[in-house]
């Protein structure tokens, strides 16, 4: 509803910030990516280590794995527990975090649990998950939740707790109800920090699922990495790692879009 009204023409006389027909931020982003790939290619050619392939051979390996279906299959395996774990962590994490920020009792119940989880070396605990949940998809999902949920919960809690008191008073002065106060003021006010927590949570969830695949059951993208490392096909191994980075970046971009579209339309124009 807001996004529709937020399109304002640029002020007249504003200096054009376009290069080669694209906005200059986009231009510099592409440029920096190209430089990184270029340096990677050169470093691979020197080579700095026999375990470090060039950019081009990594890309060739990646496309080969995409077209023969191995990569697609591996992602199918990895994304199921990752998607479920992240969705569960996001939904319950934000709900619990908001309730902790609004309610002392809820804070008292949940805070110790998540602080301990966040502080503990979860990677060391992952093998223990097997005792309770076996080696299937449930165990992997639990690993994702253990890494993602604390970050999401604690970020949300802090964001809500630190909601701008002046905006809350403003809402009260116009006779807003408590529910309106929460949904129209506190949550949008906390949205940037909540979304920062979600982005970190997704990244942590990725770590969780890969760790589970390396430590519990050799499947999915984690298995692709460890298998190719074990037979010294480093270009394939790096190709798998590369896809993870691309995938994370896409997820982060997606979350940013959701945040701007539904919660913080004012950031679009910055």
């Amino acid at each position: 509803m807001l996004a529709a009204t937020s399109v304002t023409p640029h002020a007249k006389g504003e200096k054009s910030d376009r290069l080669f027909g694209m906005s200059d931020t986009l231009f510099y982003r592409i440029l920096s990516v190209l430089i990184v790939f270029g340096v990677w290619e050169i470093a691979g050619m020197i080579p700095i280590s026999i375990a470090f392939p060039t950019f081009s051979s990594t890309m060739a390996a990646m496309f080969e794995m995409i077209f023969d279906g191995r990569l697609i299959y591996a992602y199918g395996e990895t994304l199921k527990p990752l998607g479920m774990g992240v969705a569960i962590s996001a939904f319950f994490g934000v709900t619990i975090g908001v309730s902790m920020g609004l309610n002392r009792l809820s804070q008292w119940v949940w805070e110790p649990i998540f602080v301990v989880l966040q502080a503990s070396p979860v990677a060391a605990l992952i093998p223990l998950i097997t005792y309770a949940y076996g080696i299937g998809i449930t165990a992997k999902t639990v690993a994702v939740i253990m890494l993602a949920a604390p970050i999401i919960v604690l970020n949300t809690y802090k964001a809500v707790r630190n909601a701008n008191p002046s905006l809350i008073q403003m809402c009260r002065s116009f006779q807003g109800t408590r529910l309106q106060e929460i949904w129209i003021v506190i949550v949008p006010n906390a949205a940037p920090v909540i979304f920062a927590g979600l982005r970190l949570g997704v990244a942590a969830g990725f770590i969780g699922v890969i760790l589970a695949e390396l430590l519990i059951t050799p499947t999915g993208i984690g298995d692709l990495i460890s298998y190719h490392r074990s037979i010294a096909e480093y270009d394939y191994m790096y190709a798998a790692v590369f896809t993870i980075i691309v995938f994370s970046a896409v997820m982060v971009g997606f979350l940013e879009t959701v945040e701007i579209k539904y919660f913080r339309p004012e950031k679009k124009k910055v």
Partner: protein
Amino acid sequence: MSDVATAAPLNPASATPENIVEVRNISKFYGSVHALDKINLSFPKGQMTTLLGPSGCGKTTLLKIIAGLLEPSDGEVLINGKVVNGPGPERAFVFQDFALLPWATVLRNVAFGMELAKVPKAEREDKARHYINEVGLSGFEDKYPHELSGGMRQRVGLARAMVVKADVLLMDEPFSAVDEQNRRKFQEDLLHLLAAENKTVIFVTHSIEEAVYVSDQIVLLSPRPGQIHSIIRPEISRDTSPDDIRRDKKYLDAVENIWTDLRKYLD
């Protein structure tokens, strides 16, 4: 509004003009900090009252108690003769720090009170546009607060308070973020707007000149615990031009007298 005429004196004993807001025996403690001590005040309908006093004397506290945003430790606030215990539609607050929603456009911010009251979107936006125009911000409806200057943001806050048609406007240092030239312009605009709408205004400021220029009644508060030091009625005719008012003998005398009173708190 027709009910203004029918709002005959509920209390025939009260002197003219009728007091729309009354503060009775208000005290406020923040823990052990004694901020306000037994404040009794009357605010006549349609008049502008200024709260003036040294920093930390409890002006904001008193204003927020009247707004229903803070609980007094003792005493009561009456609006139209009735005791109130919270915010109500008769009062609207203009915040010192603007309190605009950063994620909402000027239009949505101004219409926010009506959004909370679930007024249909088209209707509330129509009304909001009218006041956006009144405060001189037409053309900025779709801007976000961070794209506006401090003075413009305060105008948004003012329009938001005006549009809900509250009889009483509570303003906490509304001009403190505005530079001197714009401040004068803003004061004049405000006086015009308020005169046209017959608002009762309770206004906090640090500026003696501003207080004398805009007020019918000035309440001087003493340092903590805030008590009423004196009440001054400048009785300046507002029919003349702003520049004449600022040269008026009564204006200059009032400024001088208040300054003499306040100066002793500085030593």
